[in-house]
């Protein structure tokens, strides 16, 4: 295979369990839950009154007040993460602007501003809608502002595929480098839509857990008492570079990206087919691109949302692709602690996948007390494990039947 090799040289994150990657990783491995009462708006009368919120984030720690004011929260997270990414990498995008790009997954974008400005429209008329409305709400303003703040002038766009957005973001950034369109790409995923319509909408679709009395134990992927996902928010970013480029500047390499698979269910707006066949397709596609047999994979960072359907179908899909080997590898469900970051999930879970390889440590899945029907695989329910890991497959599946799978490998020169 003569394909350009692509490596990860830095990661950053803002999650419900830490406002940087290292803190988030430490807390993840310690089994900390980021769930708590919803504080962003008055949710009296809502079916779900808790979420996994980012805590103590001050936008003006990362950007001037005027800039922060012209961004919605999701964009602030992206800019803050990008700045941490650049600081941690020793690489300055402004030094090679045309060869450095930005791709961020974002599923919904500026819902908060849409709600507020719609309110203004109804109450005060069209002449009162802010001139900043459109620029602030569009999902691609997150990568847009990242490019403004870092000086990157390479390919820049957002990938939107609901809960798979972040994974597609990493996959297409990888592709841009393989194709030689860029030498370095800041990529990942971001989302923040802790708003009345989002919660009401997900509740109406019966997607959210309603375990209001016990938020920390509500997100329980693969457990028989799971009752829906817990909404989260945040951003996860990776710096991908061509191996040649990373070596030329003596960069520290955390992991290698060796394959990206993408597929569709072609089935239903929100439910996967019962056999998880669409999910199986993208896992197979990633393996094929990497030139690996299923038996090579030792660890899967699962989508594991804590919904009845996803966790069941995902388990079936893993068994379909890996056969008996499914019982030899181990999975983990980060969402048991950070909740479902929607467009940000694939980004943050990719960050955790990379750190798994760098630290040779598999984070445990919390709240898995009684496995659900057919959920008899090893989901690392006993707590964080330190053991050799060679490959991590990171999976994400979204509404619309969109599936994405990234394969990371422990870096060997």
């Amino acid at each position: 295979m003569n394909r350009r090799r692509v490596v990860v040289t830095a990661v950053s994150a803002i999650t419900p369990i830490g406002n940087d990657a290292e803190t988030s990783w430490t807390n993840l491995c310690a089994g900390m839950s980021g769930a708590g009462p919803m504080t962003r708006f008055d949710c009296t009368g809502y079916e779900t009154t808790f979420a996994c919120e980012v805590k103590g984030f001050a936008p003006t720690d990362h950007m001037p007040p005027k800039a922060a004011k012209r961004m919605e929260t999701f964009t602030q997270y992206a800019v803050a993460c990008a700045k941490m990414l650049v600081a941690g990498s020793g690489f300055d995008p402004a030094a090679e602007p045309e060869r450095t790009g930005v791709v961020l997954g974002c599923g919904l974008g500026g819902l908060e501003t849409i709600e507020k400005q719609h309110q203004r429209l109804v109450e005060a008329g069209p002449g009162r809608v802010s001139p900043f409305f459109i620029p602030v709400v569009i999902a691609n303003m997150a990568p847009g502002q990242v490019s403004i703040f870092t000086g990157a002038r390479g390919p820049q766009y957002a990938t939107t595929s609901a809960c798979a957005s972040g994974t597609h973001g990493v996959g297409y950034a990888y592709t841009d480098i393989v194709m030689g369109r860029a030498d370095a790409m800041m990529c990942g995923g971001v989302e923040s839509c802790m708003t009345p319509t989002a919660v009401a909408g997900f509740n109406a679709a019966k997607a959210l857990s309603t375990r209001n009395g016990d938020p920390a134990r509500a997100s329980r992927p693969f457990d028989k008492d799971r009752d829906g996902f817990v909404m989260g928010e945040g951003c996860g970013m990776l710096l991908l570079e061509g191996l040649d480029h990373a070596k030329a500047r003596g960069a520290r390499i955390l992991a290698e990206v060796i394959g990206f698979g993408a597929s569709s269910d072609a089935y239903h707006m929100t439910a996967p087919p019962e056999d998880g066949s669409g999910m199986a397709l993208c896992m197979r596609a990633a393996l094929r691109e990497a030139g690996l047999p299923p038996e090579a994979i030792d660890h899967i960072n699962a989508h594991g949302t804590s919904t009845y359907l996803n966790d069941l179908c995902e388990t079936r899909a893993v068994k379909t692709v890996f056969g008996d080997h499914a019982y030899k590898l181990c999975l983990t469900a980060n969402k048991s602690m950070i909740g479902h970051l929607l467009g940000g999930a694939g980004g943050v879970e990719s960050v955790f996948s990379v750190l798994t390889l760098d630290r040779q440590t598999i984070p445990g899945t919390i709240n898995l007390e009684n496995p659900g029907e057919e959920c008899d695989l090893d989901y690392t329910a006993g707590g964080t494990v330190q053991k050799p890991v060679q490959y991590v497959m990171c999976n994400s599946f979204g509404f619309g039947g969109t599936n994405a799978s990234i394969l990371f490998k422990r870096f060997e020169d």
Partner: protein
Amino acid sequence: MSVEEKVKAIIVDQLGVAAEEVKPESSFVEDLGADSLDLTELIMAMEEEFGVEIDDEEAQKLIKVKDATDYISSKS
């Protein structure tokens, strides 16, 4: 608060500049760093605060802080 003080507060809030930087002779674009979107939002905020309508033609003449203060005072 006087018209001048209210206008200053709006500018500080919208443009993120320090209160000391906002002088009557300060130009919105050159001195206070406002772009075209900022200017539109500024005009809207002033319309709301003072209950006046400032049409596009009149808005274009408001180059300095003093122009805005004088205009609003003349309309109230």
